[in-house]
């Protein structure tokens, strides 16, 4: 009796879980599925074609946009990771009264809307610096929320790092730079890589901040958004599918690195 009821409960939970996953992934899989369909308006019953991808690759606009998005993503991720690493180490190592404040100030950009960051950097560049939108300012502006995210990720891992190790290295003659390169970095690089990848994905996918700063320079999200004016073209589905593929590939690589212990998220094996 109770076993039977338990069986029902498990089944109900299973259905609920399936519904949640459906809710999360249905739109994404719909886009991927449609990108391979012959008729994108009503892709049922299934009939497959690579035409959408053909359109995508022949259009030079998308090539430029992809290149720009990659530059933006990599640049912003690099800047965010460097700033966040410095910040996290500083907050952890210096027991100052202002530590809480310093920590808070690294996180507040997370609560500022992207739109606002976009508009305000645009206004600041135009009015104060008299600069037109350019890639550098877009990289810098994207690194604002990127730094906050990277800071969170790095801090969460770095609290477990044993700084006494650095003390030991210094006693044995390593200056601060040598010490960081020889001792700190080899142990903490996995979490820096994690922060870098998240920063890359954020900037790569960002529309608002990049759009305001880049103006006419195309990125993948801005081109996709711009082409909406002409309706949902087939190449747009192909584009969405490809972007998703890149993001999933990055997570796949991270998973494999962890799974096969090439990267260890844990600093000292217990002795």
């Amino acid at each position, binding site marked *: 009796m109770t076993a039977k009821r338990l069986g029902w409960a498990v089944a109900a939970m299973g259905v609920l879980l399936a519904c949640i996953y459906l809710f999360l992934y249905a739109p994404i899989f719909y886009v991927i599925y449609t990108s391979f369909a012959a008729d994108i308006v009503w892709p049922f019953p299934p009939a497959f074609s690579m035409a959408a991808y053909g359109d995508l690759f022949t259009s030079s606009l998308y090539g430029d946009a992809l290149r720009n998005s990659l530059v933006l993503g990599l640049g912003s991720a690099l800047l965010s990771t460097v700033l966040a690493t410095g910040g996290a180490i500083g907050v952890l190592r210096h027991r100052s009264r202002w530590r809480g404040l310093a920590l808070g100030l690294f996180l507040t950009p997370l609560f500022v809307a992207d739109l606002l960051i976009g508009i305000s950097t645009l206004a600041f560049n135009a009015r104060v610096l008299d600069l037109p939108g350019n890639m550098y300012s877009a990289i810098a502006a994207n690194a604002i929320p990127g730094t906050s995210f990277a800071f969170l990720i790095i801090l969460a891992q770095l609290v477990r790092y*044993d700084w*006494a*190790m650095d*003390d*030991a*290295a*210094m*006693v*044995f*003659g*390593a*200056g601060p730079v*040598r*010490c960081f390169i*020889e*001792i700190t970095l*080899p*142990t903490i690089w996995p979490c820096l890589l994690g922060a870098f990848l998240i920063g890359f994905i954020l900037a790569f996918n960002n529309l608002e901040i990049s759009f305001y700063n880049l103006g006419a320079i195309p990125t993948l999200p801005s081109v996709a958004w711009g082409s909406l004016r002409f309706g949902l073209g087939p190449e747009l589905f192909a584009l969405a599918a490809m972007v998703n593929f890149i993001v999933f590939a990055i997570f796949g690589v991270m998973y494999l690195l962890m799974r096969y212990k090439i990267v260890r998220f844990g*600093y*000292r*094996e*217990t*002795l």
Partner: protein
Amino acid sequence: MRNAGTCQQFVKAGTSVPDAVLKLQAIVKRFGTVTAVDRIDLTIERGEFFALLGPSGSGKTTMLRIIAGLERPDEGGVFIGDRDVTALPPYARHVGMVFQNFLLFPHKTAAENIVFPLRMQRLGRAERDERLAWAMSLMRLGGLEDRYPNELSGGQQQRVALARGLISRPALLLLDEPLANLDRELRSEMEVEIRRYQKELELPFIYVTHNQEEALTMSDRIAVMHNGAFEQIGAKTEIYTNPATAFVAGFVGHSNRFEGKLVEISGGLARMAWQGDAMLVPVPRDPRPGGAILFAIKFEDLEIARAPDGVDRTGRNRLAGTLRDVIFKGQTANYIVALGDGSEITISSAPRGLDLRMSEPVIVHWPVARGATFHV
């Protein structure tokens, strides 16, 4: 920058001592309201094995960190050789250190760990390999070169840590309770070995421990530290036989303690009133007749005999009691005796030739000059 001023004064005063390897002058270090190191002066001579003995929280680690440069003193100066290093960072001081939990670099092999100080000094490859071979054979680590720290036993890690501390031939080696994490057997083995290395290398060691046996076994000179200050500093036999304070008497060796009142001083001895009885004890420093005093005497300074013994014991204190227990320890036995007031004292002596039975009346006696007395 308060330090800079203070050091300059010391330099001007011309206090450099040519034969001293290390000199600390009036070091003070505070953490908030805690004074971890409280006006410490110390001189370490060439080739000396110096032990810093004190209970937990007495400031031993803080002192080592100040010497190594990992902590900046609030006041005072640190001199290594005749160099004022107070303001120098750790990597400019050339001292070696062995940390309590070893702190081997987990991503480097044993050999990489050991040569790390030499690489930092940019020593040539040939010389580096030569010294590595020397350190590996000194520490009997042959064959373990390519193991990572988590693949080594506790004792092996400890020897790698020692090798890393020694390999650059530092001016002095600081050791922070290096044996605390080892089991008892390995510890006593390492005690002997560490002392042997020290004598072979003629390198000054500053050895921090809260274990009095370790300090007594290994060192030449001991400082007993308490609440950030030295209670007593001297040769280990001096510390053991002539404790300067009640704290030292309680901390080093095993003592019986009698609390009483100083009645009078006569003939170079003090008369102490204790439990309606009187004992003759050594005179305390700055004697105040009528004041409360503490008399401490080591287990092995007491003698025990079957009562009643008709032997004349002039010049001796005697206490009557009953034997409660005998704890056999091998070379010695501890005889636990209950005194008239119910308190218990312990006598340590050779177990042979003393076939006392439990609950038997006994006499505890000792020459009047033994033990140490303090005002409390």
